[in-house]
């Protein structure tokens, strides 16, 4: 058999898209600002989408309720950050991080714990039935959204950035918001940890093998279900983390934000190929860039541009850029 060859074509799409946008936008400093914003948004979306795509790949579970973990993460963060005013008001980035990192951890914990319950009560009874899964997880999302409204209220809550992360760095003519750099760093950290876990550890090996052929791995004596619960919880926690970042990116949170981001995530995992983490990264970066470029060029069609992007990718590779499952 041929040695594993890296398929570079999808990866090339990201710079190609960025370069294509350059002449349309005209000014290179605006282009740089938009590109950084797009990459930051892409990294946040990737953090959220990675869990969903693994959950689908491993257990064939399509979770329409994934968005609720995003909202939960973001709302928990408002509560945690709200109680640490001294630290977020401080000018020093280090002191800000002391506030933001616990907020992120608590958000991940809460989202993960709710993910565990969600898996047990909502998803487990309907394994293997796609139609019911879609209906039930959608119902779960509605319930979650309403509970959030009950606890935090139905209105929009501002989530101000900590002082040290506000403002922007000026690079030539281009202004780059500091938080976007932070988001990119966090996103890359998550990607690195995920890539390392999936590529270098035994659990990662089992997950990847399970995504490709679940029955074979079960036949070898591993309990995929148990592994799946773990992946579901981690995926939910990552969605919670992504929610914190998304909330800080938008600087406000509202109960329907999960449903809003869900749409982007679905586009991302379809572009990436269901079950593929690498594909999700590329999809997320493409969607992030596209959203920012079209948001600048033609704001009214911003969402449609992502759908057009997805349609174009599907015409090229009907299973997504990196198809992994045979299902």
């Amino acid at each position, binding site marked *: 058999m041929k040695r594993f060859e890296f398929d570079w074509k999808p990866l090339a799409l990201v710079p190609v898209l960025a370069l294509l946008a350059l002449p349309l936008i005209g000014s290179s400093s605006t282009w740089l600002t938009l590109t950084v914003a797009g990459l930051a948004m892409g990294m946040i979306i990737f953090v959220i989408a990675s869990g969903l795509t693994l959950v689908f790949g491993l257990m064939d579970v399509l979770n329409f309720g994934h968005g609720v973990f995003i909202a939960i993460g973001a709302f928990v963060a408002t509560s945690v950050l709200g109680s640490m005013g001294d630290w977020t008001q401080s000018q020093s980035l280090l002191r800000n991080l002391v506030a933001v990192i616990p907020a992120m951890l608590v958000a991940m914990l809460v989202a993960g714990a709710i993910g565990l319950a969600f898996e047990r009560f909502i998803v487990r009874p309907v394994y293997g039935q796609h139609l019911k899964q879609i209906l039930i997880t959608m*119902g779960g999302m509605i319930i979650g959204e309403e509970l959030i409204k009950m606890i935090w209220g139905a209105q929009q809550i501002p989530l101000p950035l900590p002082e040290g992360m506000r403002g922007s760095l000026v690079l030539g003519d281009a202004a780059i918001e500091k938080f976007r750099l932070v988001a990119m760093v966090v996103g890359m950290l998550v990607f690195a940890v995920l890539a390392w876990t999936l590529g270098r550890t035994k659990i990662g090996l089992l997950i990847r093998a399970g995504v490709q052929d679940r029955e074979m791995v079960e036949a070898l004596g591993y309990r995929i279900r148990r592994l799946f619960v773990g992946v579901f919880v981690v995926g939910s926690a990552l969605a919670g983390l992504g929610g914190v970042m998304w909330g800080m990116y938008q600087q406000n949170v509202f109960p329907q934000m999960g449903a809003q981001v869900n749409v982007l995530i679905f586009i991302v995992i379809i572009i990436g190929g269901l079950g593929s983490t690498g594909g999700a990264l590329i999809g997320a970066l493409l969607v992030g860039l596209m959203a920012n470029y079209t948001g600048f060029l033609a704001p*009214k069609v911003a969402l449609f541009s992502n759908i057009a992007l997805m349609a174009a990718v599907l015409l090229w590779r009907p299973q997504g850029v990196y198809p992994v499952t045979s299902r």
Partner: protein
Amino acid sequence: MLNRLLSHDLPRSRLLAAMLVVLLLALAFAPFLFPGVKALSVAAKILVFIVLVASFDLLLGYTGIVSFAHTMFFGIGAYGVAIACTRYGPTWEAIATGVAGALTLSFVLALAIGLFSLRVRAIFFAMITLAVASAFQTLASQLSDVTGGDDGLNFRVPDILNGGYAFLDERFLGVNIDGRLFCYYLLFFAALGLLLAMLRIVNSPFGRVLQAVRENEFRAEAIGYRVVVYRTISSVLSALFATLAGVMLALWLRYSGPDTSLSFEIMMDVLLIVVIGGMGTIYGAAIGAALFVIAQSYLQDLLRLGSEAASGLPWLAALLSPDRWLLWLGVLFVLSVYYFPTGIVGRLRVKTQGIG
């Protein structure tokens, strides 16, 4: 005769048949049986929802695919009439133009979405329809020159449909014989006709193929039916019927806005009605829609009572507040998918078969 009218798909349960007859009679004589503006609006809403839900059932229940863009087509129908009537004045020609335009747009959109997503995997369909529907919703609220934005469009309909137009000077059986009544009966016969048409479709050979696809896609393909083609046709048909339901809604309300036709909450309502009524039965759509609309119109009052009664316990009161109506809908929805997957009609039919 009756058998042919119902396309040989009889209710097959005495109780169900009785419920359907009661529903038919109640709706046919609603203006005389239940006087009052609110009751008539509820009856008209039931008529619209029967068509809307039955058209969704064509897709979910008979073909086994989930679409979240159904309210988009519903909205296209409503906005089609609204925009045409605002632009060209309250004439029948304007309404016809609006309907034709809306049907064309729905046809093209449904065909495009269907060919794109169903060609690859049926599971993409749910995700892609969700994306398209939310993009469409955003677009509708942003193009405020055309759609009126978040405020929606108020428009005038031909005089003959208005309350001011009197056919008889005197009241008949205590009811004004006016344009409003005419409009209601227009809706009633439209709903009846559309429902029978859908019954005809699902009981035709074509409908049987749809059910075969639902039960086992692989086998259907192996027998020689192009699954993609059938699924796409089904989604297009269901979109067209939903568009007509939207037209009915707009004519009745003389208004079209994001909350009445496009919103995601209506999508949830439709999903819930299909599940409660019974997936894969057109009758279930009718029964479910009637029960649901009545419950929706009166259950919120019940919740308010509960909330006031529980005012001693703040968290319970918050849980029972009428604003949390969607929460209970969600719980009901999840429970009925678990324990009640065949819905009311499925239950009734099983019971009959068990005895007979």
